[in-house]
């Protein structure tokens, strides 16, 4: 077990290193950020000074070395745009993203799981078709469009909800629904297919043959097993919701990490993009590592095979 954990931690560190190199190079391919931080036609001297200030006049490997050594000490650099430490910016935005992601996740599970179950139980029927249509819309409608339609209807037309910003539960409803719908659709589809698979298994057939009530068969015997992949996916989706709800946070002026990433990309604020991607990636790597360890702990075959 110890050897398994050491090996997995090693893979995780390697993934993190590769991620940091990739994002470091990738953001720099997009071009020079200094021209976006001055007015068009600014003097070359001003542009050069800014490049010097940001360390962009150094060779690429020197820039990476500085980034990597600072990263190890917990310093992810200073934002070009905000001129403040990016880690400080990240943690200022994190509570907002956690709040939005938590509510969106609850909504997505509340909508996705029951509708997925219903679609699986009534396969081929009205509820199945309704569920499929719902999930198709959730996955295919662009989030910015959904967001703007909600704003027009609930804020401008009905006047029930604030159009944007943060501050209370009313501010949360529209962005959480917009973000949650997309994931609800994914959760619904997975719940449906997982339930169909479980409902077709021998032990469920046996439970039915034994004469157990249908609600008990579905609610107790089938659902528990069918939910395992859904919960695993929800865990990963939660990390995605926290870090890359770019469109929703921009449309609703929600001050989270997604909007920070959007601003970072817009202004080519390399340290911000690097910070969000590396920390977001780290979260996913850590979640995967924990899941791997947990699986190996529960099922000895996994650790023996690897």
């Amino acid at each position: 077990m110890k050897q398994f954990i050491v090996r997995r931690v090693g893979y995780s560190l390697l993934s993190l290193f590769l991620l940091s190199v990739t994002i470091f190079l990738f953001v720099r391919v997009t071009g020079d950020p200094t021209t976006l931080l001055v007015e068009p036609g600014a003097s070359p001297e001003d542009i050069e000074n800014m490049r010097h200030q940001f360390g962009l006049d150094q060779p690429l490997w020197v820039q990476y070395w500085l980034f990597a050594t600072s990263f190890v000490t917990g310093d992810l650099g200073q934002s070009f745009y905000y001129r403040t430490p990016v880690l400080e910016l990240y943690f200022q935005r994190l509570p907002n993203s956690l709040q939005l992601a938590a509510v969106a996740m609850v909504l997505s599970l509340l909508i996705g799981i029951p509708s997925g179950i219903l679609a699986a139980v009534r396969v081929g029927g009205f509820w199945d078709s309704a569920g499929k249509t719902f999930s198709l819309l959730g996955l295919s409608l662009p989030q910015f469009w959904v967001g703007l339609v909600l704003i027009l209807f609930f804020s401008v037309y009905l006047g029930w909800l604030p159009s944007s910003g943060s501050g209370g539960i009313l501010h949360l409803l529209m962005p959480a629904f917009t973000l949650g719908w997309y994931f609800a659709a994914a959760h619904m589809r997975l719940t449906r297919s997982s339930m169909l698979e479980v409902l077709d298994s021998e032990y469920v057939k046996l439970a039915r043959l034994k004469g157990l009530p249908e609600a008990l068969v579905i609610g107790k015997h089938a659902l528990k097993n069918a939910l395992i992949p859904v919960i695993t996916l929800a865990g990963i989706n939660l990390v995605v919701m926290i870090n890359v709800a770019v469109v929703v946070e921009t449309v609703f002026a929600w001050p989270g990490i997604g909007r920070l990433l959007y601003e970072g990309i817009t202004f080519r604020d390399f340290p911000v993009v690097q910070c969000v991607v590396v920390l977001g990636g780290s979260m996913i790597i850590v979640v995967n590592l924990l899941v791997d360890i947990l699986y190996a702990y529960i099922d000895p075959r996994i650790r023996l095979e690897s």
Partner: protein
Amino acid sequence: MTAAKDDFAGSLESAADGGIGRRRLLALTALGLVAAPGAAWSAAPEGQLTWAVHFSLAPTWFDPAETPAMITPFLLLYALHDAMVKPMPGSAVAPCLAEAWKASPDGLAYEFTLRTGAKFHNGEPVTPEDVKFSFERYRGTSASLMKERVAAIETPDARTVRFVLKKPWPDFLTFYSSATGAGWIVPKKYVEQVGDDGFKKAPVGAGPFRFVSFTPGVELVVEAFDGYWRKPPPVKRLVFRVIPEEATRLAALKRGEVDLAYSIRGELADELKRTPGLTLKPVVIQGTFWLYFPDQWDAKSPWHDQRVREAARLAIDYKSISEALTLGYSPITNGIVPDSFDFYWKAPAAVHDMAKAKKLLAEAGHRNGFDAGDYYCDASYANLGEAVINNLQEAGIRVNLRPLERAAFFKSYAEKKLKNIIQGASGAFGNAATRLETFAVKGGAYAYGNYPEIDALFAEQATELDVAKRTAKLHRIQQIIHERSVYAPIWQLAFINGYGNRVGESGLGLIRGHAYSAPYEDVTIKKT
């Protein structure tokens, strides 16, 4: 309130005692820097106005020392801080913390007299030491240029600051007042006490509003400063709320969640105009757009022929383009120098005459038109490029649109790698001289060639201390550029905003060329 009135009276008295005199007082009154008795300052500040800002506010802009080469920070500087001299309604160089100044006859020194009664938000008076400290601490745009040219800053008494230059520099005041943040004053004692980072977290300035709170990515809240020397602001609280999405800003404005919204363009601007209770307010900024013909110095190029360049100018349907893209609010100034700049020369009105354009092309030997190569532009203004290209094609000038991502475009432009036609633009600060130096004079960062006559005139004006003579020379340069069709100017960009029916005075457009509401002490809530 009484204290504020006393401060104001005190400053008036000192203006008179300090030898400013009746004429100067009249001039100040004309500039709106003093107000008539019984005007707005007698009422206590009340109410709140909320702006929807289209970008995230950065704490770096709370500190004038870090002012970059962009207009954005001035949105906040005008609220929190004050400058010795700065653009104000009716004047590009208006007395503020300095109530007067004079240049020495040899142009080697500028002496400023500080206004009595000017205070920082912590109650400390603004002193010459603060002025000196602010300049020395300044590290924003053109910092090295200014520090290279200033030999010393002297503070001979409690109200005088003297800048001694290494050699005459006629543009000193332009750079000190509007092209940089070097003239915006911070309290020395406080900055030394809290440090640079502490200052950004809790800025203290001498502006009309004091800092209350800042929530990154959400909003900045400021509150009226009763002790502001010009007048206490009539609005108690200003909130700058960040709403990056244009349609959401408009929705917030319609709902009354915000009172003013910046940057509403295209169809949304049209909708704003049609919405009862909302007012559309375009502001013409200092950003001029043009076509540049970099091959005009190559004898083999069709662009070498002045008639071809003139034909291109005549082919552009300026008015229709402005109407289609900015509801007609971007004026056709027909020059590369913004009309708000000092030494601006007003060119004859731009003419759109397709028949004449075709005739000129035929005379130049291009009866059936010609393949003019590529048309390079910043991709974010490709829509403008498409409109211009349609006009050029109609005249027979066949070009291919080559939009480049903004950074790549300006890099290639500056490195002089582009050919055929460049759709250029500049929003840089300065005056006509600084704009011409960059774009039209030999060695200019974006000048692909030069005309000796322009270079000679430019060299002469650079040391000319007589304002009238200097103006004449700079006007002549702009005239030559116009006559030779070195450029085909397109428009001066309008920045379109809107406000709701609670707003009395929005402050938009009060200061020429300034994109945002200012001065904030003039902004009012409508009386009901």
